[in-house]
């Protein structure tokens, strides 16, 4: 006699997408897009093989790195300029960011001012520093001034956004209490807002300085001062061992900067 087996229940993992068909559709679209992108790259086995040979040649050219005195002078000159640029740009950028941040905080700024502030931040954050650098070079000429302008500009976008978020997160009670004593707008800011955000300002400044050091090493590629110009020159002149030296120096500076930055930020917490 045949025994009847009751229908077995099944289970399917629920999906974050609206339903399973949407999920598969999204996966297919993504895969197709990736394949299309890859096809556009025009990768071929021949290219990879050629590339391998070129890579070997490049490495042979770079190793060993060059340390002649003349080149070292060039190197140090460029690094110092980059460092100086990063210091000035950070200071200028942070100073400019503070008003922009106050303009961009929802809980403090009136609506039209808020939109202007956020607009400045968005425009600053949308463009890579090299774009700003290249335009600055055309405006004020080759050299560190263009670099400082470019880095300050990016600093404003970065700093003002984070500072504005910090201001929006503050305990409004402290602000209200200050206002209730009869303080004017500026005094309210000083006593009700600034103390709450000050620790963050210092930490963020150090953080941004670290980032600016990295960026200051490459804006020279478009003529905006610093070691970047030296770097590009050595590369274009096939002076690959000096190229490697500069890269190593940049890496060293970046790592030292990161160590110092982490240490200081750890101390102020």
């Amino acid at each position, binding site marked *: 006699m045949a025994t009847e087996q009751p229908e*077995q*229940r*099944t*289970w399917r*993992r629920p999906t974050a997408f609206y339903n399973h068909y949407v999920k598969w559709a999204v996966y297919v679209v993504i895969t197709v897009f990736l394949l299309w992108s890859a096809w556009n790259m025009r990768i071929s086995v021949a290219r990879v093989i050629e590339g391998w040979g070129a890579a070997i040649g490049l490495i042979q050219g770079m190793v060993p790195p060059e340390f002649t005195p003349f080149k070292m002078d060039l190197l140090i000159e460029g690094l110092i300029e980059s460092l100086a640029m990063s210091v000035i740009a950070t200071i200028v950028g942070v100073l400019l960011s503070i008003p922009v941040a106050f303009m961009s905080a929802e809980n403090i700024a009136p609506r039209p001012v808020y939109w202007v502030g956020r607009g400045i931040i968005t425009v600053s954050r949308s463009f890579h520093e090299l774009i700003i650098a290249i335009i600055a070079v055309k405006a004020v000429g080759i050299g560190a001034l263009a670099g400082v302008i470019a880095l300050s500009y990016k600093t404003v976008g970065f700093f003002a956004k984070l500072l504005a978020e910090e201001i929006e997160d503050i305990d409004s009670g402290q602000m209200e209490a200050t206002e209730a004593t009869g303080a004017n707008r500026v005094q309210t800011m000083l006593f009700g807002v600034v103390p709450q955000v000050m620790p963050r300002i210092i930490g963020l400044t150090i953080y941004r300085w670290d980032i600016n050091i990295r960026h200051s090493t490459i804006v020279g590629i478009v003529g905006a001062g610093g070691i970047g110009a030296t770097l590009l020159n050595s590369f274009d002149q096939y002076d690959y061992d000096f190229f490697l030296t500069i890269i190593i120096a940049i890496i060293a500076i970046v790592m030292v900067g990161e160590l110092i930055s982490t240490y200081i930020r750890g101390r102020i917490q």
Partner: protein
Amino acid sequence: MLSVTDLQKTYPSGDEALKGVSLDVTGSETVAMIGPSGAGKSTFIRCVNRLTEPTGGSVELDGLEITGLSGKELRNARRDMGMIFQEYNLIERLTVMENVLSGRLGYVSTWDAFRRKFAGDDIERAYEVLERVGLGGHENNRADELSGGQRQRVGIARAILQRPKILLVDEPTSSLDPESSRAVMDLLTEIAAEDDIPVLINIHEVDLAEEYAGRIVGLRDGQKVFEGGPDDLDETARGQIYRGEEIPEGAGPTGKVAEAGTPGESSQEEGQIRRG
């Protein structure tokens, strides 16, 4: 079913967590292990399925020597040991069903595991087990949406789904309130009885141990200082387990000296072994 002989665990720091503990769990009994904090109860249970590696002694499950197994053999052996954890250890971001089904991971290929493809029988059984632990209808909830008591029940369901030969339970009620604790203990013992599975449970609430266990083992400082039924667990015994009171010369496993007419010699030996 489970036969642990002279289990030792010494950590690299020199800390001797287990100094040679032997224990047998047979049939479908429920054995509760009690003792003060740091006695080595958790270490003992974790050594059974080798989540913690013992440094000496042997563990045998159903005749199979666990302590010597490697890689795949150990994984296969672990399938037969269902473990329930103090902190539930559910995969918080996954659904209840996935958590329960993960009990069968030892039986599916890696690729099927990735695709969440389990045998139809297992899925059907998962539904049944969920209903049995009182969580029917919750299979698509995320584990972190459940209360503590509910999460522990999912943990029980996961262990049961393995069709284990023994349940290893590590302080299942420490993170629960008294009412949920009782509910979980009820459920645990009921299921174990229904499926005829022995249970080794590590617990520090002595009253729960007395109520639910058939046999109680007392651990102190890495050594077994008591073994007997709930009735044998009187004040003397508790003192020996929890306050380190002296175990008299010639005492048996329950910590008391044998009375006239009862086999004294073997008790004396045991006493010496335990104190030595």
